[in-house]
């Protein structure tokens, strides 16, 4: 099956009076790997379940491949889903688990009955097709040696593969994945990330991937939809989300270690001051008043002449080093600076350092959290 587009228009859903989703519009392109990412309770899983048909939206419509399926039963949507728990049928062998979606669709009810189903005549060709499709799916995920085992006899990673094989055996219109890697250990998770991305490239199918882990979203996705409190805060490529966060919420969520946020003031002429001095930046459209300046850890640096700060601790992460700093004499929050491990920190005369930042890469957010334009003034003193 060719990959299908998924279109969500004006989706709204509330549970017991509480709005879980408010007016979500999302157009997922055919063959795209799109991640829904956000903290728990942001509505990402509910949105996925609405696409699957397991929940009905209160408002709005869902279309698969241009066809409205809002009222269509999940079994008729031709969508495969991988659950966090894998949801394998424990009484069936791996082979039977993978065959289930095909048996349900291609065999009549009588032939699916236990024991007497085998007696229904004239289905040998179909049964052979199903058996070979199961072998192919198992081959694609390298689980052929496991076909005759029961799920209880498999490790977490193997169950994950079986769940994926069961999803891809029938070439669905789209794959939905609900936190599929969160039950795996860190090493296996990194490995499965790579495999999932590879699987997506090979199949060219539409993937919708729900996760609370920004690393998963950033590493695998073509686009990421960052959700908070039932709304999509920003939809864009991982690079866009990182480099041009549309709001304070996005900036806060994306990036490890987290972005440094400094309280600043915009004056009547648009000049920005913070850390007790003029920062040499201006906000052309900024309104007068408090604002927040976002600085990624890698955009902070030690300079000859800057804000005096003291090093609180240094964390070594192999190639990188994270330095936690405290600005002297100010009530500013502690900052994290990230530098390559081969760079030496510049110690100041009395154990303090001078801190500067890459002005061109700073982000400015207004009091309402929205991104504001920012530019350097000529006589930048940073």
């Amino acid at each position, binding site marked *: 099956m060719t990959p299908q587009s998924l279109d969500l228009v004006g989706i709204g859903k509330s549970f017991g009076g509480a709005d879980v989703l408010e007016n979500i519009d999302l157009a997922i392109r055919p063959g795209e790997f799109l991640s829904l990412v956000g903290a728990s309770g942001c509505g990402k899983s509910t949105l996925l379940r609405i696409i*699957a*048909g*397991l929940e009905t939206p209160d408002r709005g419509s869902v279309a698969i491949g241009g066809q409205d399926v809002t009222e269509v*039963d*999940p*079994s*008729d*949507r031709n*969508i*495969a*889903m991988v*659950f*966090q*728990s894998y*949801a394998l*049928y*424990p*009484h*069936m062998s791996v082979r039977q688990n993978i065959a*289930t*979606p095909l048996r*349900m*669709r291609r065999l009549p*009810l009588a032939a*699916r*009955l*236990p024991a007497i189903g085998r007696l229904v005549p004239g289905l040998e060709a179909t049964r052979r097709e199903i058996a070979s499709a199961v072998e192919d799916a198992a081959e694609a995920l390298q689980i052929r040696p496991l076909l005759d085992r*029961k*799920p*209880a006899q498999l490790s977490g990673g193997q169950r994950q593969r079986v769940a994926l094989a*069961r999803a891809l055996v029938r070439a669905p219109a789209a794959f939905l994945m609900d936190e599929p890697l969160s039950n795996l250990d860190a090493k296996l998770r990194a490995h499965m990330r790579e495999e999932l991305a590879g699987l997506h490239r090979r199949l060219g199918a539409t993937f919708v991937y729900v996760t609370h882990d920004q690393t998963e979203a950033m590493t695998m996705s073509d686009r990421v939809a960052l959700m908070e409190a039932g709304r999509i805060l920003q939809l864009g490529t991982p690079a866009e989300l990182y480099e041009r966060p549309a709001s304070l919420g996005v900036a806060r969520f994306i990036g490890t270690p987290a972005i440094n946020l400094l309280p600043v003031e915009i004056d009547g002429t648009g000049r920005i001051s913070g850390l007790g001095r003029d920062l040499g930046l201006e906000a052309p459209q900024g309104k007068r008043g408090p604002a927040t300046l976002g600085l990624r850890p890698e955009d902070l640096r030690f300079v000859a002449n800057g804000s005096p700060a003291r090093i609180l601790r240094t964390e070594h992460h192999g190639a990188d080093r994270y330095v936690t700093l405290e600005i002297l004499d100010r009530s500013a929050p502690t900052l994290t600076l990230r530098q390559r491990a081969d760079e030496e920190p510049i110690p100041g005369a009395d154990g303090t350092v001078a801190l500067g930042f890459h002005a061109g890469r700073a982000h400015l957010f207004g009091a309402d959290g929205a991104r504001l334009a920012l530019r350097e003034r000529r006589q930048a003193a940073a």
Partner: protein
Amino acid sequence: MSALDLVLPSTGAAATRRSRAERRMMRRGLVFAAPAALLLLATYIVPLLVLGGFSLTDYKLGAVSTRFIGLENFVQAFHDPVFRRALANTMLYAVIVIPCGVGLALGVALLVQGRRRSRPFWEIAYFLPVTATLVAMATVWQFLLHPSLGPVNAAIRALGYAPVSFLATPSLMIPTLAVIGIWQVLGFNMVLFLAGLTGIPKDLNEAARLDGAKSPIDRFLTVTWPMLGPTTMFVVVTTSITAFKVFETVAVLTKGGSGSETLLYALYLEGFEYSETGYAAALTLLFLALILILSIWQTLHLDRKVHY
């Protein structure tokens, strides 16, 4: 060599010391285990041995002398028309009560589980017979089924048929008792099935829907039934034991008349009415053996199929 001589005796002494300490610990262990072991012996093992002893004699309750008669009691049992009839009646009763008591309970549990607000009402309604005393409830059944006074026969007459005397017609007595038996076990089994149903992960049903299991029959066969396996096994075993132990309804409603004796009722007659203690002991052993064999067979046979 002298070094070796010095070492060997000392390790030997250590070994004896250690074994003495071990022996002391073992004695203490036995002392601690003794009360439980004695209680077990006094309440289960000894009575069973006494029962076995009685079954080999012609002892009558209160008799001054008794005689060892070997397996004669058992031989007599299999030639006794009352015992054979009781065995056949009990089998018929079990064959009706076990499948209906389990199947209907599963059906009711599936229906009740789907209710939101009325669920507690149905649970209580079906569970009431379990809490009520069966002897008391049997009198209500007696009234309901009474040929001239009962509402059941009133309904039958209203439909234009002749009244049926459920508790006096020999061919209807055991089936009628079986219906009461089903009524009694239904609620308990339903509660067990409801517990089993809540234990089924929601993900599995949803996965089945996405896999194309559109009809409820498909979802039942793919998820619900296999996942209820352990519950079903437990329900079948307990229902079987309850069915084989049928006594109250027979004692109250038919008093074993017109050939409606069951195993436990025949046993009660021999042991308590006729004071044939030796013979009753033999019947008890036969009954125990039957239940034991059946339960072990069910467990071994079903256990392999229901645990994954």
